[in-house]
């Protein structure tokens, strides 16, 4: 016993140490992380964000230097808070809450205190920063907008939030990310890749040289410049024309699918979302729930297309062989399909064949064609699905697949849709129940860019390229191959001729709905639309003034531009949308505007009164 006691104690001590070491070194890995945190500092080297150019090489977006006040909370020593707040020009409560947030994020990693100082603020502050341990000024680069338009196309730059950091470990607190538009879509290309430097620190938090001979360090990759398909002149002109109106303009180049202009109205100056005023301005835009300037109407707005849809009804009718170009169909002020009241029509000559039917936009004609198309099949279900099949080949009823981060599917109803709606087979439904589809009302919904795409498809006589906004990346034509695939429709080429004739007649026929806005010297084909629409006021369905819609392409042969103009509550398609479309086409093809009277009228026209009506709380009249 006396001999063995110390031996026993030594062995027990050895076992205890083995256990403790196992716990510290193997079992509990929190020490591993702590060690990295406290001995190695990570410094990021942010590359310049790529520039953005328009199709003609005009610079749209570049960079400007900006200075952020950053803090590493654990290094902060006692300081005169009041004096410091005065220096930073912020309230003490704000300062306290900023510091609390920084502590919560990480005591050892930098967090922003005041982002984006102006140059003069920086100058006065930089001299005094040495007095405040733990605070420093970091130079960053901010967007510098060379244009005051295209905010919806370009998107903007925002600080990453916790959700993004959690989802994408590339980003750290206080870093920037593209939000919306091409900034978001081409984020990884524009931003490049940040470089990382690991720096060994000592216990006083001083840098004592690179960590492990820079073995883990990486150099930054500069962001690549991108060239957009946007024509800055056309885009700016479009935004000017849409002032005091709501809606949008989409212009495509039919031969390539390139987006020439993507105007959403109302719009705002992209520079509003840069610098210290950013969050104030953003809040203002975000909470404008009436005009919704952040809502991209051309990509996200789902509207009934109205009469332009008649071109598609004609094409499907011809393809299905239920009508030919010669047959005349009479109209007695409407189409009686057995409902309570007939599908109304306006006054025009009667009977009309296809070309004049399109030019005069006769509802009865298209209702007849649509009904024959559906009733060609044994059941309306088969008929609807076959009809839908033709439409989806135009890129309708689903996401179009363009390279912008937002979008909507629109709606081309399936037979299932009606079966569910009418509770088939408990109740049966027949073609007349869907008759409004024939004239682009009823269930059919499209986004303006989808409308522009089907217009481009007609202009191409039966095929389209997926709309896209990227033209070159880093100065090289390396756009994704999916934008070079030719999408054919289910309609035979020969059927497009008569329909295009009809669309041409809309301008050239003296009775055509757009006859008054012809452009001398350019052969335009187009179609007006006046789309009924409804809203809810206090839970009640209320009809508002019709949307003014116009689709067009020009010139008739070898078309260079296909355009959709959508003006919310603008009433007749010929009142607002058709003049705007003709001005856009003239601007793009000729470069100058000859019809200055029309231009002035559109530029000065305002629909604000119309938009105020549903919010006035008083009864109002529509379609004046």
């Amino acid at each position, binding site marked *: 016993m*006396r*001999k063995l*006691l*110390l*031996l026993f*104690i*030594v*062995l027990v*001590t*050895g076992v*205890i*140490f*083995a256990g*403790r*070491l*196992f716990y*510290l*070194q*193997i079992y*509990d890995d*929190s*020490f*591993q992380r*702590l*060690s*990295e945190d*406290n*001995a*190695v500092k990570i410094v990021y080297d942010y590359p310049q964000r790529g520039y953005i150019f328009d199709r003609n090489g005009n610079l749209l977006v570049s960079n400007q230097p900006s200075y952020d006040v950053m803090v590493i909370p654990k290094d902060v020593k006692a300081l005169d808070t009041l004096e410091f707040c005065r220096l930073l020009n912020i309230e003490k409560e704000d300062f306290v809450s900023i510091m609390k947030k920084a502590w919560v994020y990480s005591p050892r990693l930098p967090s922003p205190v005041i982002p984006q100082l102006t140059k003069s603020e920086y100058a006065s502050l930089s001299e005094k920063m040495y007095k405040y341990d733990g605070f420093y000024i970091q130079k960053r680069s901010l967007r510098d907008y060379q244009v005051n338009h295209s905010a919806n196309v370009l998107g903007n730059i925002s600080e990453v939030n916790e959700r993004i950091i959690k989802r994408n470990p590339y980003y750290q607190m206080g870093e920037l990310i593209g939000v919306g538009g091409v900034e978001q879509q081409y984020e990884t290309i524009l931003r490049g890749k940040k470089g990382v430097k690991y720096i*060994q*620190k*000592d*216990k006083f938090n001083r840098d*004592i*040289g690179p*960590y*492990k001979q820079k073995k883990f360090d990486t150099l930054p990759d500069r962001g690549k410049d991108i060239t957009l398909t946007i024509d800055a002149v056309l885009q700016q002109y479009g935004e000017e024309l849409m002032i005091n109106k709501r809606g949008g303009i989409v212009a495509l180049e039919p031969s390539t699918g390139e987006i020439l202009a993507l105007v959403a109205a109302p719009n705002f100056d992209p520079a509003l979302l840069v610098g210290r005023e950013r969050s104030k301005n953003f809040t203002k835009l975000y909470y404008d729930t009436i005009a919704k300037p952040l809502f991209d109407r051309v990509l996200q707005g789902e509207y009934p297309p109205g009469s332009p849809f008649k071109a598609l009804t004609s094409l499907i009718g011809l393809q299905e062989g239920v009508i030919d170009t010669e047959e005349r169909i009479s109209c007695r002020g409407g189409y009686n399909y057995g409902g309570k009241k007939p599908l109304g029509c306006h006054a025009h000559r009667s009977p009309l064949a296809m070309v004049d039917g399109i030019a005069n936009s006769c509802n009865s004609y298209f209702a007849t064609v649509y009904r024959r198309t559906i009733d060609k099949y044994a059941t309306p279900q088969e008929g609807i699905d076959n009809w839908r099949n033709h439409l989806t080949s135009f890129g309708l009823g689903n996401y179009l697949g363009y390279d912008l981060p937002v979008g909507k599917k629109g709606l081309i109803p399936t037979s299932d849709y009606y079966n569910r709606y009418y509770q088939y087979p408990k109740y049966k439904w027949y073609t007349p129940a869907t008759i409004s589809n024939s004239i682009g009302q009823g269930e059919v919904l499209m986004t303006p860019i989808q409308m522009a795409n089907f217009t481009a498809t007609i202009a191409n006589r039966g095929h389209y390229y997926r709309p896209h906004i990227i033209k070159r990346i880093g100065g090289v034509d390396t756009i994704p191959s999916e934008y070079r695939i030719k999408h054919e429709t289910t309609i035979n080429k020969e059927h497009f001729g008569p329909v295009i004739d009809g669309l041409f007649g809309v301008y050239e026929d003296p009775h055509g709905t757009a006859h008054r806005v012809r452009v001398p010297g350019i052969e335009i084909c187009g179609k007006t639309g006046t789309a009924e629409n409804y809203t809810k006021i206090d839970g009640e369905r209320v009809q508002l003034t019709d949307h003014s819609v116009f689709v067009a392409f020009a010139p008739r042969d070898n078309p260079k531009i296909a355009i959709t103009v959508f003006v919310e509550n603008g009433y007749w398609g010929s009142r607002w949308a058709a003049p705007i479309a003709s001005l856009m086409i003239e601007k793009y093809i000729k470069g100058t505007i000859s019809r200055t009277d029309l231009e002035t009228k559109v530029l000065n026209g305002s629909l604000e009164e119309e938009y105020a009506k549903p919010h006035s709380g008083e009864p109002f009249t529509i379609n004046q």
Partner: protein
Amino acid sequence: MNTYTRYVKFDWITILLYVLLVGFGWVNIYSASLDNTATSFFDFTQVYAKQLLWIGLSIALVVFILAIDSKFYERFSSIIYLVSLLALVGLFVFGKNINGATSWYAIGSATLQPSEFAKAATALALGKYISDIQTNMKEFGHQLRAFLIIAIPALIIIPQPDPGSALVYAAFIFPMYREGLHFVFLLLGFFAAALFVGTLLLGVPGMAIAIVLTALLIYFFKRRKRKTRWAPYAIAIATCIGFTLSVNYVFNNVFEQRHRDRFNIVLGIEDDSKGIGYNTNQSEIAIGSGGWTGKGWTQGTQTKGNFVPAQQTDYIFTTVGEEWGFVGAMVVVILFVFLIIRLLFLAERQKSQFSRVYGYSVAAILFIHFAVNIGMVTGLLPTVGIPLPFFSYGGSGLWGFTILLFIFVRLDGSNYYYT
């Protein structure tokens, strides 16, 4: 002379363990002290180069110790003991103050710490006294004298102040126990420590309740079997509570704040990783970040950043833990356990009582250093500034342990002489 040398046989296992520990120790001192100021490898302003010099001189010292007749150590033990006591006392007059402790003699630019050598001297003196034919460790007077031999150097060292080095003298309780000291002394020591920690954790009232409850429990448990007198229990309770009160008094009035802090941190009463607990916290981080195989020699980020204080001396084990990982740290632990067990084994086979007591003393001193130092750096024990034998940087320490160990190697080598 021919027959004499034939019987001298040194224990090569012990020597090998010594070489491994000193060698691996230097490798880690090199890493811990590495910075960019060195002009050449043999730049003697550098810590690792100085240590290399101490190691070289140790070899000469070893040769010298082994060359002397083993009888010398027994015969002159009293004189060696007295000289070392004088050296310790002399510190109060001639000592040099480093980091608040007057534990060093300055000889030119070098310093010498006599307390490192006093351990060996005390072990010799204790061996001499116990092995005296007159001495009986079961007699109170003899026990008292043995305790005095140990207590005198310890009491001189405490006010220098260097309570850590003084604590090491508790190691001598093991050889004394081996030579016949009653088990009660060990038990008392253990109880005192338990009451001490208990008082700090529970406070005086809590501890008093715990003591009374425990005593009552034992009392009634025993009374169920046969009638038990209550008086001894009452005395035991009174003594324990008295001790508790005195602990409370000593802790709050005699201890300095830094001592109190060290205990409070280990006992988890305070958690202040930025201030007082910084040492322990940083050393745990350094060791813990090593993982299985460590970050590689001279690659430790904590070591390079000098986060751990006194990393070349008392905290050298953190470098082992960080750069060599669990594997390297366990190698060191196993080497120490092997060495101590080997020494115990050798001590048991000694023919002379003097050698046995001395061998036991060496094993016990190494054990206390090993247990307290590694216990401290791994956060199991309060911060007590004592070095890890053979590992920590410092000439006096290395020489002190070398002398301590090799006198025993010399004694063991002559073991056969007596047959």
